[in-house]
């Protein structure tokens, strides 16, 4: 675990800041709740995931899995409770923490008007990576090398999903978050995505997978957390 120099993190928001590196071994939610008035999205959830884990967040639709994923991704602020990344709280970190998070949601986070290559190039630059060394391998892994310059709008659901997966993993994040990644995929594609997930976990990433599909999760995840509505 790396200690993080506070001043450098604050500098990262400034005009000339360089994103410092940060790493952590585990992610822990402690009594996390998120309410909208009297409607409850998540109530007092405590989970922990470590490197190498493939944690399944299982539960029916509307049980707050997406909110939990949002909380883990620092996009949603919990009403109460704390989120710890290694020894740090989310609010202390900011950009260096986001550098270590990869999110693939049901919505694919792709610009359909742009080509596969343009999408990957844009995001690799936004992550401060060199597109020359990251884009081609990613296209290769997605199996889209020959359609790299076609617009995403013309892709099938499976092709988009593969591209979205590679886009989310471009920057080799430590914490990988998946929200219902199997929706609309055929068996072959499900197999490919599952294999990729296992490899990520084996390579030392913390993988959190939210799904309502128990059959798919079975045999894939190494630990399970059940979220009830």
């Amino acid at each position: 675990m790396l200690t993080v120099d506070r001043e450098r993190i604050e500098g990262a928001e400034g005009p000339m800041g360089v994103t410092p590196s940060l790493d952590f071994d585990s992610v822990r939610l402690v009594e996390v709740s998120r309410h909208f008035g009297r409607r409850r999205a998540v109530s007092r959830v405590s989970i922990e995931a470590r490197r190498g884990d493939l944690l399944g967040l299982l539960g029916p639709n509307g049980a707050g899995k997406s909110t939990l994923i949002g909380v883990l991704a620092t996009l949603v602020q919990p009403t109460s409770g704390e989120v710890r990344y290694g020894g740090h709280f989310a609010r202390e970190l900011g950009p260096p923490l986001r550098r270590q998070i990869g999110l693939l949601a049901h919505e694919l986070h792709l610009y359909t008007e742009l080509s596969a290559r343009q999408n990957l190039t844009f995001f690799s630059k936004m992550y401060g990576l060199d597109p020359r060394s990251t884009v081609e391998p990613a296209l290769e892994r997605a199996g889209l090398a020959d359609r790299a310059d076609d617009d995403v709008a013309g892709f099938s659901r499976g092709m988009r999903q593969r591209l979205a997966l590679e886009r989310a993993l471009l920057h080799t994040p430590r914490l990988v978050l998946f929200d219902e990644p199997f929706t609309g995929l055929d068996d072959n594609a499900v197999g490919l995505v599952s294999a990729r997930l296992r490899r990520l976990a084996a390579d030392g990433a913390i993988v959190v997978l939210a799904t309502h599909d128990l059959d798919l999760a079975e045999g894939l995840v190494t630990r399970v957390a059940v979220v009830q509505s």
Partner: protein
Amino acid sequence: MRKLFAPLLVLTAVMFAYAPVVIANTRYESTMFLVQKIFYFHFASWMAWAAAIGVCGIASAVYLFRADPRGDRLAVAGAELAILFGAFGLVTGSLWGRKAWGVWWQWDARLTMALMAELIFVGYLLVRKYGGPGAEKLAAGMGIFGAATTPFIYKSVDWWRTIHPQTSVVRNLGETAPDMYGAMLFCTVAFLLLFASLLTVRVHLESRRAELDRLYLALEDQP
């Protein structure tokens, strides 16, 4: 706050009840005579209105940056009171205008500004009501920007149309007519106290609602 509330309420009520007596005892202004007496409540309304807008803006910023729900409650109360005191100012101003200038609405600078500012805070309440889950944050943005834009609206409308008595009138009052000045101060203090009591009551309503929400959540958590 709770301990202070009862004396605050009594003081407000006494000052409010006594205000007409104070106003009645002032001299008549030489050109506008009786209708000038609207001025005491009119001016006081604007002071309370400005306070309400300030409270809404600052409380919104506190809510946004500290995520403190108390800031949110204070901001709603401020926005509602800005609408209320704005309405006081608009109606008394319009009545005064009818007498002094012969028309109900003259596109006078201050009145126009107040009308625009009313729009902002009605917008604030609309976002809260129809913004969906998490609308408090959107409303907080509206509160900060609404409070920040008010001086700009003031300045721009001022340059656009000015037939309203200049603020120097208020300053001169102190020298030329100390009793008028005193009555004005008295009414302003009364209105600010009224604002403080209404704010307390409105915030109380909002915290009761929060408590109710908490109870609902607690009930759901039971096995």
